C-alpha cells in the first residue's frame, strides 16, 4: 500500500516526465501550481482520498500537453519552430528590441556627441542590426532593406558629413540633417514593425 505522499510524488514526477519538452522554468511553475492545488484541496477536503484528488486533477499527459500548447501560444515567436530546439533560440528576441536599438542609436548619438557616446551609439546600432538579421520576425528581403535604411544609410551619410564638415555638431544644417536621418530610421522601424511576422 502506497502512502499518499508517495502517490503525490509519483504523480508529480509523471507530470515532470511528460512535460520534459517545456522550458525548465515553466515546468517548475506547473509543478508548483499542482503541488499547491493538492495541498489546498487536502486542507479543504480532509476526507477526500488522495487518489480521488489526483484523479480530478487529471492525466499527467493531458496536463503536460496543455502546458506545451499554452507555451507555444505564449512565446510570441513561431510555435511551429519551437520543437526545432537550439536553432529557434536566435529568433526569440522581441521584435521591438532591434527596432528600438536601431532607431534610438540616432538620438543617443545626437545627445552624446563626445567620443565614448559616439562609439556606444555605433555599437548599439550594430547590435540592433545583428538582432534584426537573426530575428525570426522578418523575411531576408525585409531584413536587408531594414539594415540598409536604418543602419548603413545613416552611418554612411553621417560619416561622410562629419568627415567633410569637421564634426557632428556643426550647427543648424547638421541638426536638420540629423533629424531627417532620424525620420528615415524611425519610418523604417515603423514599417518593419507593421510587416513583422507574429
Amino acid at each position, binding site marked *: 500500500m502506497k502512502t499518499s505522499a508517495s502517490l503525490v510524488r509519483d504523480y508529480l514526477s509523471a507530470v515532470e516526465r511528460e512535460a520534459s519538452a517545456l522550458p525548465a522554468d515553466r515546468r517548475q511553475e*506547473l509543478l508548483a501550481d499542482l503541488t499547491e492545488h493538492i495541498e489546498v484541496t*487536502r*486542507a479543504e477536503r480532509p476526507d477526500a482520498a488522495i487518489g480521488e484528488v489526483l484523479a*480530478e486533477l487529471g492525466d499527467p499527459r493531458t496536463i503536460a500537453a496543455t*502546458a506545451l500548447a499554452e507555451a507555444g501560444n505564449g512565446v510570441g515567436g513561431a510555435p511551429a519552430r519551437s520543437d526545432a530546439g537550439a536553432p529557434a533560440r536566435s529568433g526569440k528576441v522581441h521584435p521591438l528590441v532591434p527596432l528600438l536599438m536601431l532607431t534610438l542609436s540616432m538620438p543617443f548619438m545626437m545627445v552624446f556627441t563626445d567620443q565614448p557616446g559616439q562609439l556606444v551609439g555605433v555599437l548599439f546600432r550594430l547590435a540592433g542590426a545583428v538582432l534584426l538579421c537573426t530575428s525570426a520576425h522578418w523575411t531576408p528581403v525585409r531584413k536587408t532593406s531594414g539594415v540598409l535604411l536604418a543602419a548603413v544609410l545613416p552611418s554612411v551619410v553621417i560619416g561622410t558629413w562629419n568627415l567633410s564638415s569637421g564634426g557632428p555638431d556643426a550647427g543648424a544644417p547638421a541638426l536638420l540633417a540629423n533629424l531627417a536621418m532620424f525620420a528615415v530610421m524611425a519610418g523604417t522601424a515603423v514599417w518593419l514593425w507593421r510587416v513583422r511576422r507574429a
Partner: protein
Amino acid sequence: MEPGDSTKQARAAAQLRKGVLEYCVLALMRDRPRYGVELLHALEESGALATSQGTVYPLLSRLRRDDLVTTSWQESASGPPRRYYALTDSGRAALDEFTRVWPGFRNAVDAFLTTPHPPTGEIV
C-alpha cells in the same frame, strides 16, 4: 436527429471549451481575486466548462505571462497560503472585448442551428 456518437459530442464540447475557457476564467475574477482551487470549483459547477482540473493551471500561467492577471499570496485560516489571481487592466479590457463580441457570436451560431433546412438524404 440522430443520438450521435458520444466521443464526437465530447470533441465538440472540448473545442468550444478551448475557445471560451480563458474568458470564463477571467470573468470569474471580475468582482474579486480568486485562488486556483476556487476557480476550478466554479468551473466544475458550471457543468459545461468542467475540464480536467490540472489543465487550467497552464492556462492561468499563460494569462499571467500575458499580463492579463496578476497573482499574490494570501494566508488562509485553514491550510497553506493561497495564490490569488486578479484581473489586470488589460485582463479587464480583454474580458470587456469578449463580453462585447460574444452575444453576436452566440446569436449567429443559434441562427445557423435553428434555421430550417430542406430535408435531404431521404430521396437519393
